[in-house]
């Protein structure tokens, strides 16, 4: 299989034993591991410490113990709203993205020489700055924007895509799927290229119909790529920030407010860095739990046996 994405760590080929190379290794690892300690490990621990303080942007922090967490869990209805919104976004975005990406990947796979061009076309919004992407969608989705003008041609009075609390989250999900789908199309496309045509041919000769071939051959063979895409897409979706920040400002009300947007506002608009850090740890714990859950199911769901 070529370039199959995998999250598994390959076994290390042992170089011939030459005794320890500790000092040499330390020299090579110094920049990477120092940076890792200072900019990843230290902040991770520090954010746990900060979350135990009442920590303003300017002025002296005050130790408050677990108060921030108590407030988060029992005294702040907005937290549960943003948590619910983020979960809803993550699940809908991931499901829609994966199903659409799989359909498009299969379509492009069977398209022959035109496939690669369109694969790259669908990948463009992944690479262009999210801010530019989000701004043009805001323009398109405004009440008298191009989408409603287009609908008006058919006599349809278009809704307020971004300021109707029933629709705003759906609009964010649509925009996000457009932005992110190209990534999964490429990963799944690579997975599809790895499936041997002989296998499909054998299934065909044995009398398997198109749907049977899809569910009994393609899907199991594709499961490593699908697993990889699911993990990456879910993790990414919990960090959603730019879309609500630029398209809806989290509104109307708090209907599109998300964990990271709320974290940002607590830290840098409401002057509550401690509380924002408690939110950050909530996010961290959720993402870790979901990742652990996915990896614990990996053996059951993924067929690595080709």
């Amino acid at each position, binding site marked *: 299989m070529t*370039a199959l*994405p*995998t999250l598994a760590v390959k076994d290390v080929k042992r170089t011939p034993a030459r*005794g*320890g*190379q*500790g000092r*040499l290794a330390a020299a090579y*690892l110094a920049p*990477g591991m120092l*940076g890792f300690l200072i*900019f*990843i490990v230290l*902040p*991770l621990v520090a*954010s746990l410490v*900060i979350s135990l303080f009442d*920590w303003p942007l300017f002025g002296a922090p005050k130790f408050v113990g677990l108060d921030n967490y108590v407030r988060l869990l029992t005294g702040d209805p907005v937290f549960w709203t943003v948590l619910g919104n983020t979960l809803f976004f993550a699940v809908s975005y991931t499901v829609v993205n994966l199903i659409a990406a799989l359909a498009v990947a299969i*379509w*492009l796979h*069977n*398209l*022959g020489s*035109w496939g690669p061009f*369109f694969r*790259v076309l669908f*990948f*463009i919004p*992944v*690479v*262009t*700055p999210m*801010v*530019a992407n989000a*701004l*043009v969608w805001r*323009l*398109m989705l405004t009440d008298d924007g191009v989408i409603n003008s287009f609908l008006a041609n058919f006599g349809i009075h278009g809704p307020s895509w971004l300021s109707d609390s029933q629709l705003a989250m759906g609009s964010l999900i649509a925009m996000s799927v*457009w932005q992110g789908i190209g*990534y999964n199309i*490429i*990963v799944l496309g690579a997975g599809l290229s790895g499936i041997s045509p002989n296998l499909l041919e054998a299934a*065909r*000769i044995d009398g398997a119909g198109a749907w049977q071939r899809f569910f009994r051959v393609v899907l199991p063979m594709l499961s490593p790529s699908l697993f990889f895409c699911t*993990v*990456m897409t879910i*993790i990414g979706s*919990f960090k959603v*920030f730019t879309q609500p920040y630029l398209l809806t400002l989290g509104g109307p009300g708090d209907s599109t407010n998300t964990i*990271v947007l709320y*974290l*940002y506002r607590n*830290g840098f608009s409401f002057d509550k*860095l401690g509380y924002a*850090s408690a939110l*950050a740890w909530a*996010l*961290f714990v959720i*993402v*870790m739990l979901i990742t652990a859950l996915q990896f614990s199911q990996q053996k059951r769901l993924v067929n690595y046996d080709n």
Partner: protein
Amino acid sequence: MTTETLAQPEIDKGLAHRRHATASRKKRRAGRLVSRIGVVLVGAAFFFPFLWMFATSLKPTSEIFSTGASFLASRVEWSNYQTVWTAIPFGRVIINSFLVAVSGAVLTTVVSLLSAYAFARLQFRHREKLFLVFLGTLVLPQEVLVIPLYIMMAKLDMINSLPALIVPFAFGAFGAFLIRQFLLSLPVEFEEAARIDGAGSIRILWSVILPLVRAPLAVVAVFSFIDYWSSFLWPLIVINDVSQATIPLGLSMFSGERGTDWGPLMAAATLAVIPSLLVVILLQRQLVKGVSMGGFGGR
């Protein structure tokens, strides 16, 4: 599928078969035509936001909503692009973006190569354990770290500086992981030969390994360039002076100041999108390869 006809049961000989084959070939061709027309339509709809961005950037402000779903206004308003350059120091913002993305990509790539070499080729205690801990942070959202990083930058008096945009995010595990995996697939014989010839490890890294790992290095460099180029949350937090802004932040500041002035705003967005488009067109092979190796983790 060319095999479709071969798999038909009870193949008759002669005319009937030939007629049958022609019919199914026609059907296949029709199917392929429909599929191609379909993909062109879907592709065009998919690309539409970028066309709309560019079309809007050439419309006079008064006509942006009155023209409805039409691409063209009564005249082409190139002055929107001038407005971008005068409203904010957009030239400076573009230079900042390049400085940040290029130095960030170089720093990330060099650091990743050094770590990858140690993890793949050198023997030391707890190598596997250390690598696993390092790798575990691949799924750690950067968003979790922004508060302490902000406080750190404030203490170091680095708020509103370009290094604050570059340094904190150059030490992720993705690059080292990707290059290490690639190194493990290479035979060690070249290095052994060089070692026997008396080359030191720096010499080996430079003249033996470097030429062999160009492909994954390019992937790491391109991906970190794009990450730095598109990054928004961190610049939003650590920069509040437009002269130190990168393009995404400049765009959002611009939209904050002139929220309803869509012509210049879309002109700025178009300028922000063009370099990314060039990257996609010129480097599509590296991108496709990088994605299938796990690049852009969790975007």
